[in-house]
């Protein structure tokens, strides 16, 4: 089957992406942007997280699932296709979520910190790296970046995203 944008949606496979970090690192903004981008490409998308106390520097994790149809809002342990950490300790704590064939983006986190003088753009860089592996159109990514960051630093975010996405 194909979605509205003509992208192939193969079978019932749901793509599972786990984001983690601590309060204030932009974890929830990053997961929002992936979810928006997947939605713009016509995928059924669910993202789940908890708010409240977590905002005070505590652990933050956000589950994003998209595909033809998604049931549970939560990723099962050992099922995440992609793991996007923003903090090493949180990565180590939640690594059991990553599936055996899953992709861990921890090494990209180090590159993100090297590449981004302003730490505000680390999450955008990580999204750029993630985008290489996902069947989401660039058009939808760029639209999602603009909406997800509420129109702030549009040009800078686009530049960082594309740089990370185009890097080998």
């Amino acid at each position, binding site marked *: 089957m194909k979605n509205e944008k003509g992208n192939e949606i193969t079978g019932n496979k749901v793509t599972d992406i786990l984001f983690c970090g*601590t*309060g204030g690192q932009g974890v929830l903004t990053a997961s*929002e942007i992936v*979810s*928006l981008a997947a*939605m713009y490409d016509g995928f*059924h*998308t*669910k*993202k*789940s*997280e*908890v*708010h*409240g*106390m*977590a*905002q*005070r*520097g*505590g*652990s933050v994790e956000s589950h994003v699932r998209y595909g033809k149809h998604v*049931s*549970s*809002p*939560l990723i*099962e*342990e050992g099922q995440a296709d992609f793991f996007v950490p923003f903090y090493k*300790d*949180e990565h180590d*704590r939640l690594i059991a979520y990553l599936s055996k064939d899953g992709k861990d983006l921890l090494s990209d986190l180090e590159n993100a910190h090297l590449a981004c003088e302003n730490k505000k753009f680390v999450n955008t860089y990580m999204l750029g790296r993630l985008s290489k592996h996902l069947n989401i159109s660039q058009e939808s990514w760029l639209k999602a970046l603009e909406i997800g960051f509420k129109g702030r630093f549009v040009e800078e975010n686009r530049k960082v995203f594309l740089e990370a996405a185009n890097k080998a």
Partner: protein
Amino acid sequence: MKTTLLLSGDEALARGAYEAGLKAAAAYPGTPSTEILEYLAKFPEVDAKWSVNEKTAYEVALGASVAGVRSMYSSKHVGLNVAMDPLMTSAYTGINGGFVVVVADDPQMASSQNEQDNRLIAKFAKLPMLEPASPKEAYEMARIAFEVSEKFDTPVIIRITTRVAHTKENVEIGERNEIADKPFTPNAPKYVMVPGYAYKKHIALEAKLLEMAKYSDETPLNSAEINDKSLGIIADGVSYLYAKEAFPDASFLKIGFTYPFCDEKIKNFAKEVKDLYVIEESEPFIEEHVRQLGIPVKAKDVSYRIGELNSTLVKEIIENKKKIEKPFTARKPVLCPGCSHRAVFYALKNLKLTVSGDIGCYTLGALKPLETLHTTVCMGASVTMFESMSKILGRGKVVGIIGDSTFVHSGVEGLIDAAYNGAKGLVIILDNSNTAMTGSQPNPATGVNAKGKKTKRLILEDICKAAGADIVETINAFADNLQDKIKELTDKDALSVLIVKYPCRLIYKIKDPVPKFNSSKCVTCGACLQIDCPAIYKNKEGKITLDEHLCTGCNLCVKTCKFGALAKKDN
């Protein structure tokens, strides 16, 4: 062109209510329900209000319904406890304009003090309850709830849980339907609940429940999906989605209209399938009812009543396992760098006082290494528990501590109680002019309403004096004499209120010059770490490090350093 938005369960529910012609809404903020009213406040057609507490919110919303418009109340699960008084009797009076009561439960306590299952409230209060499994369903059920409310002349509860409220999903939205206001006709037997009238209303309510049970059996909100008949699962709310994920080929009775129960559908479904399970979070609410119907059913071990479910746990339940609790490894939340609460806790710790605490960011003062808050039960309890604790443990030993929003919620009554009953000692109001833990909502003491408009501001000093406090003083949280002032007022033979003022760092991003850190003077004694500030920590080499980016320059750490390694920088 249809519009599809990525909406949370809270937002989708609010959007659905808006489109259903909602005209009035009242709420008190509380995770995970806060975003419902925040979303509604954006619409000029909706009179959306933050109320003082859940009881007033419920009555404000009920009043709008009685006056003839579609109206909605929303709060978190424990908030509904505060509104139980009007809730119970509004089941008797019924409504005029459609009235929907949204309650957001928090199994797993992402940000709550207990895990109560408010499905039991539906049965207790004799009110119908709907349970969406997802944002999409929350959007649709909002409209249905208003129709049910007006059809049966009753408040309707929509119960969501954290994983519905804070899950986002693509939701196709529509246009608003304006609903004509209903006339208000005085009708004492309906609206005045004195014994004679209430008795007749109770008779009518029992008949209404039977009618609603019939509706429960008719509505597609409760529907059977027959697939593999060897496994049949009855599930409500988000539990249905976990079960569907775990057993996509099983047969399901999906419950969306939870109470009154759909007995005929349950009986028919039980006949169709071989192994019958109930999958539900928290209490065995549906399970017990199915057993009452005389139907043998398998269900979860008691251990799964604690915390939330997920698809992995559903598999364990079906395998008849017991839950193994994993160690709690998540990073603990911490007060923000420069938070004024930290200055107060530092002073209280030095004075070795027993602290009767309350609900807000400052509850974090109970955690290591601050450990300076000794009780937290519910909103407002700090003042009332202080009243009796100080009498029994001795004056000069106990203080009460409460935030500005929580004080307005239900601390004021406690202060009147304390004054009336001759309590002596100190109540501290942490006035950061914000309801910070739930994401910065205004409250009466901020002088701004839910729509962001200026309104009458409640003057805390005035109300404390009017309540009967002998001494009411105001002090800056970072004043050098804070600790001495607390000591003075705690020991005095009077009832005192000390209002500690400093704006919340989440709203007012103040950055003063950061202290100077001289590492050669640092002996790594760790005294500065005892204030638990994220901006000061031990690095991987075991050396004290000041994060100048995070630091706001509050200089509290300077007070802790006896070796001059941390020094205030001159402006």
